């Protein structure tokens, strides 16, 4: 029983990609590592899985305050004592990125926020009322039935039901479906006819947003 897992399978972190999230990358890294594990060594089999679960909670906005230390602890043991090079390398990469981007991790863990709105727990999806033309494609595509609307109406996403499958984003011909972080734009509570929301209201909303952001 010789483990065939190899660190060449692990994706590498592209520091130049300004749209990427380091936490999301680590989640994918550990997901690959745990699935590549041959299952023999406990640190590889259970350790990478545990790290994956903790990071998954972080990306979902369900982190606990001690998770950063817990991750370093488990990863440290994997790096030092795991049997195979694959999991040791994965742990090493993950730990390095935690130290280099500690602020970003901290923001994820303590404030449930992701700078680039990559991690699912840190944003909601909304239909930009200025761009939506009421074509209904998103409504039909939503697996959760979380989008309300009708012909010629501005569609509205019920964020409680939204699973962030991102299918609507890809089908919208207008690019009207967008992510919102901590600050939510003012949106109609229910579908209204296209064009019924005035430009001025929107620009005012934009200013409120900026003001609020400054305060935080």
């Amino acid at each position, binding site marked *: 029983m010789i483990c065939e897992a190899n660190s060449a399978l692990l994706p590498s972190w592209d520091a130049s990609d300004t749209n990427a999230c380091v936490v999301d990358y680590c989640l994918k890294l550990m997901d690959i590592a745990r699935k590549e594990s041959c*299952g023999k060594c*406990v640190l590889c089999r*259970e350790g990478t899985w545990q790290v994956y*679960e903790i990071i998954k*909670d972080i990306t979902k906005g369900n982190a606990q305050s001690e998770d950063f230390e817990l991750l370093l602890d488990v990863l440290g043991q994997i790096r030092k004592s795991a*049997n195979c090079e694959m999991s040791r390398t994965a742990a090493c990469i993950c730990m390095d990125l935690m130290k280099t981007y500690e602020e970003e991790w901290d923001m994820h863990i303590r404030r449930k926020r992701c700078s680039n709105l990559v991690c699912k727990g840190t944003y909601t999806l909304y239909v930009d009322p200025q761009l939506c033309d009421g074509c209904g494609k998103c409504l039909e595509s939503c697996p959760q039935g979380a989008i309300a609307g009708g012909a010629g109406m501005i569609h509205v996403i019920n964020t409680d039901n939204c699973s962030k499958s991102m299918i609507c984003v890809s089908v919208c011909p207008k690019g009207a479906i967008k992510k919102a972080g901590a600050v939510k734009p003012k949106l109609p509570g229910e579908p209204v006819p296209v064009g019924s929301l005035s430009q001025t209201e929107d620009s005012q909303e934009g200013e409120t947003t900026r003001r609020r952001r400054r305060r935080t």
Partner: protein
Amino acid sequence: MKKISLKIDGHVIEAKEGQSLLQAALDAGIYIPHLCYHSDLTPLGNCKLCAVEIEGESNIVQSCEIIVEDGMIVNTKSEAVKKLRMTALELMLASHPKDCTSCDKYLNCELQALMQYMGVAHSRLREIDKENTRIAKSDNLIKKEMRRCIQCGRCVRVCEELRGVKALSINKKDGETYINTKGDRPLTETECRFCGACVEVCPTGAIQDVKGVFSSDAPRNMALVPCKNECPAHTDIPMYIRLVEQGRYSDAVSVIREKLTFPHSLGCICSHVCESGCKRTHLNKPIAIREIKRFAVENDKNETWRERVFRNEPNGKKVAIIGGGPAGMTAAYYLTKKGYDTEVYERQALPGGILSYGIPKYRLPQDIVDNEIEILKEEGIKVYTNSSIESVNELKEKGYDAILIAIGATRGKRPPAYNKQWSNALDAVDFCRMSCEGTLPKLGDTVTVYGGGNVGFDCARTAKKLGVGTVRIICMEARDQMLADRSEITGALEENIEILNSRAILNIEESGGKADALSLIGIKSFKFTAKGLELDVEEGTDTKLTTDTLIFATGQQPDLNESFGIELVRSSFVKTDETMKTNVDGVFAAGDVIYGTKSVVAAIASGRQAAMTIDKYLGGDGDIEETLLEREKLNPNIGTIECFAKLERIDCFKDTCDANAESIRCLQCDLRLDIQKVKYWVDPHFKAVKEVTK
């Protein structure tokens, strides 16, 4: 072998060259926690619990993987080591169920013991639910609760390395590894030999024996080998089956003779409770143990057992044995070998008891019995036949140092209402005796046997063989609850014997001193209470039958009364204490006369017990055990056999091929006892370090 000296946690200990550091520490009484390590298997260093630090090495190492070196200085309890162990155990527990108390391994679980040792509770880590642990399914022999699996891989290694079977592996599905059979097939469709090694090494409750396969009230080393445990004489059955498989018939007989005095007769007629215990029953059918025994005895060319039999010098003491049946002759055999002057008083013309006068000749030819008696008599037993003893006092006067009553249960026992002397009604025990002697009266055209046990079938089949046209058995039990062997029932049906199940005789009409017509009634159930037999009758099912001869096969009791001079129980049984002593000093009893009709093998076991007891009573050590075949170390590597789980039972052997094919079906339960038991940290072995003082 060169001794290596090293220092662990400040203790100077000695280790064997080439030994692993972990094993050396454990041997010396220093406990290092470990889980995936097993002394019979290749160490892997996967569980990280046996981590230690060695002076001069920068990294923590797994002590199971390190070979001891002279002068090594080892620390098993450093902070770094403890931290790694804690993390490793916490990680294992993250996906392990928390309901310890509902697990059958509760309080006998290595994982639980380790949690206690390290003080780890279910912890700060995320709980992980593993999907693939639901794949493996239990079967009739092995219960799988794979959600309790911690993937230590011991089962996989034991199956591959120790057994050479490779039925198990670490599988992977959707990126999740799990332990199951290769290709997720049911065990019966794999190479599995059902040896139980995987169960034996599993540290948790993931792989267990199905409850009920092994007896729970016997000691472990007996319970795990059910055939041997069930056998009243505890014959080493797996061993002789193995020898027969190898064609070593004489060696097999030596093993049989260590415990049994009438192996050939038993090979023909034993009630074989061993087979009902056989673990293979749960797979398809039990091993034909009795037939294997018969075949071994009949093919024993060298009788090598004779070379190793113990014989003590005569000790000048005399023992009388009343009754030359299996119990009496067995006791006489061992007592003679122990040096006693042993004299057997047999009422009949031939010794052998039930073997000579009870079991029909078509099942057990007389020459087999005669031959086996001769073998026993060679030791110097004096047998007085046609010598009926009416009272123990007769013998007391002759100066015996001890007396054994082993007269069996030779009187028929009928339902109380039918204790009349009808000229055409016989008790089964008398019928069988007369048939053996050739003194049977005319039976007529119709014979009815009341009672569906093995004796009833003996009577019915004997009558049929004598040419009686209509033979029927009336039996209170339903067909599937009959006490007789399956083979007897099918044999009788093939011979056109009628079996009337769930019926009782309500009344017997007589005419001219003969039992003439029988009134039968259908019954739903029956039970024996303090008031006697209670029937739950089915109304309107009365029938009437006429018969020429009626045979009561409804039980037997000893032919004893108060005038015999010892205390009795249940009107005619000898009262004994647990050491087989009667109320009269120096008088013992063995066999059916104590407990009623059981079996020949039970009587032999009882006879052995009596020999031990009497020897002790007369100042001996009570040891009659003998090793007639020196055991070699068993080869744990059993390898694979094509379609092993599906191999069909062979009831009767034509030749050595059949004997081999049947023997090979054995699951070799005894091999499991050779697997090392893991010592828990609380074991007394770890109370003190075996230190070397310089």
